[in-house]
């Protein structure tokens, strides 16, 4: 009996174009490649982190067409034409994004491994809040409260346990 998968002639590849941090990139990808592995191994953008590869930790969070997503659960080939922003693209003209400044100021990280995902997730989350999207704890109009941040950011795990400082940083930056 032939083992499953044996006999394939090799990877199926496809050429795709997408914008990453404002730059048009045309790449030939193995169709099995996740967006996360394309960023990290293919494009050298190692800011996005692999913590679990299963969408359970949030360390790989990027913005795809303005919305936060786990890059480990996105197949690169399915994102031709997408606009992707990673942690490397948050700062503009050398100026730190307000979230990045607040993270440093509030010591909202320790080892730093979950940080890129926290930052991209927070940026996406603040946009969702500004767009009026409710969450499970919303009572009336969604507002930037600690409770809302805790609810909406719970997909981003920080094992160093910086949540207290993360909440303070995100609330401060979001209020700007």
């Amino acid at each position, binding site marked *: 009996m032939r*083992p*499953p998968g*044996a006999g*394939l*002639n*090799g*990877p199926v590849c496809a050429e795709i174009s997408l914008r990453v941090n404002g730059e048009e990139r045309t790449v030939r990808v*193995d169709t*099995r*490649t996740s967006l996360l*592995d394309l960023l*990290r*191994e293919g494009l050298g*953008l*190692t*800011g*996005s*982190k*692999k*913590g*679990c*590869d*299963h969408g*359970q*930790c949030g*360390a790989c969070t990027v913005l795809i067409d303005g919305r936060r997503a786990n890059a480990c659960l996105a197949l690169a080939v399915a994102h031709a034409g997408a606009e992707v922003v990673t*942690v*490397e693209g*948050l*700062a503009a003209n050398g100026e*730190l994004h307000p979230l*990045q400044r607040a993270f*440093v*100021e509030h*010591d909202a*990280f*320790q*080892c*730093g*491994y*979950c940080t*890129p995902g926290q*930052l991209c997730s927070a940026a996406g989350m603040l946009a969702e809040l500004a767009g009026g999207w409710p969450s499970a704890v919303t009572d009336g109009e969604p507002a930037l409260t600690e409770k809302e941040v*805790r*609810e909406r*950011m*719970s*997909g*981003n*795990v*920080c*094992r*160093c*346990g*910086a*949540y*207290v*400082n*993360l*909440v303070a940083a995100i609330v401060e930056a979001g209020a700007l």
Partner: protein
Amino acid sequence: MSVAARSIGASLDRVEGREKVRGEAVYAYEHSPEGVTYAAIVQSTVAKGRVLAVDGSAALALPGVLAVLSHDNVPRLEEQESELAVLQSDRVAYRGQIVAAVVAETLEAARHGERLVRVEYEQEEHDVELRVDHPRLYRPEQVNPSYDTDTDVGDVDTALAWAHVTVDVSYETPSFHNNPMEPHAAVALWDRAGGLTVYDTTQGSAPARAEIARVFGLQEERVRVVAPHVGGGFGSKGTVRPQAILAALAARAVGRPVKVAATRQQMFDLTGYRTPIVQRLRLGADAEGHLTAIVHDVVEQTSTLQEFAEQTAVVTRMMYAAPNRRTTHRLVALDVPTPSWMRAPGECPGMYALESALDELALAAGIDPVELRVLNEPKHDPESGLPFSSRNLVACLREGAERFGWAGRAAQREGPWLHGTGVASSTYPARRRPSEAVARRDGEGFVVQVAANDIGTGARTALTQIAADALEVDPARVRVEVGDSAFGQAPVAGGSAGTASWGTAVHLACRRLVEDGGGEARVDSSDEVEAQEPYSRHAFGAQFVEVRVNAETGEIRVPRVLGVFAAGTIVNPKTARSQFIGGMTMGLGMALLEEGILDPRFGDVVNHDLATYHVPVYADVEEIEAVWIDEDDPHLNPMGSKGIGEIGIVGTAAAVTNAVHHATGVRFRRLPIRLDQVVAALA
């Protein structure tokens, strides 16, 4: 030279903070040397037995697959016994052990190939369940790192028989898994002269170099271990893990650099964990509440590969004044992965049990839990007889009680929510180990190199401050470089001893540079560390916790945690507060969420991912605050600091469970306290 303002004690932002928030900090797997290839790990599917055959032909037929490694095609290493004897024999000691690896041009090909490797086993009956009546329990020769296995002071049996009040209770904790956010990874490359470089996720570049050199039978100088940034470790990166050995074996096999990372699932098998433990505590006290006897008996596990004896009851030997004390440790070697270091090994689980039992004693004796601890404050270390270099547990308890509003506490009910409060003490040894460091002038500034590892502790920042003060300059003029074994000998980031150890060497190097006026100063702190006077050196703390327990759903919320610590000079209040809070956050997980669930049929942890092994997330954490009292201890090190990386987790779980008892009247003696247990108990 003008004397700059003192930097120690200032809330300097983390010096690598900008790098980290810009995604520029480079971690092990992110090093991609020219020609790098990818390895994927194949794990054993049986818990005990022998590998009869490894068939890699289907994997090798895949385009891009370069090699399939197994025990029958890998060269012999110097290490043949331990977890680092990777692919060295056909024996399988636990489910999940590495039995093969696939090396390929791409990660996708390696992972595809890994699924195609066929391994045939001769399976034997396995034994994976820890039981207090296990017939193979034995008494280890010592417990980690070199403590007596058992102690027996005075006459506990008589003291217990005559005690006014006693408790006799047992506590169970499951396996806890470190789960740093960065999976264990290594990138290895051999140079033409046979030298080996490993970019590794390690808490100790220098000890890792020595260990990797030993395993491969190389001279230490031929090996370099580099780890500029490490994504957490909590002990699990404190020893060399199999991925580093596998990467080097694979790189040698294919003649190219190799990168490998454990998947999150594989981390549960390959990176260590805290052993499940059963602890029996017997306490006796007189009518006033003075402890007359403490007995602390521990049963825990190790593996058949190597012994790991968690020093769970050691803390009980020094914590409180009881004239009669007995502690014991018993192990059983099971067909499981070897337990290893996890944040505050020994103190964390041991103090959970001791501080829980003390709460039970307080209730039985009708004494306030804070006052019971104050009553039993020893004048000197009960075990060694040595004076404490400083001991401010009582000050922490008093300060905490005041800030928390402990006095007059009362359990309350609001609808389905039961409110309660709890307290527990914490402690952790203040150790120091020898280290080398070099300081040199560099243009207008200074460069300091030390083979320290910053795993998120803030070591780089604290060492910058220590160097700045010793050099009498502003910290902006000092660049501290860490994470490279090329910088010399240095101890691991562990045992809360990093800053004290590296800091001593950094201080000495910087002072010598200033005093000698040369361009470079190189020091080894061994003499100073070995010459330190005999004292019992420990940090202390007290944690206060408020919980609410939903009597209908069993949900437990923790609206408030306060930790008050006495840890000598706090080098950086900003990063120190993060360390304390981080430890207490992990303690919440231990109390309420974390649990490795063993499947006895297969012999491994079923819930081996972050969806089912629950670590605390944002929604679990409300108010956690950490403060400290001024403590001036001249017997520690040039900074006057005690380590702070571990003490935060030490008292938290007991404070939580004591609060749950206060709220509900039910004593849960098994961690974590799960909803189903609460519902059943309150029904």
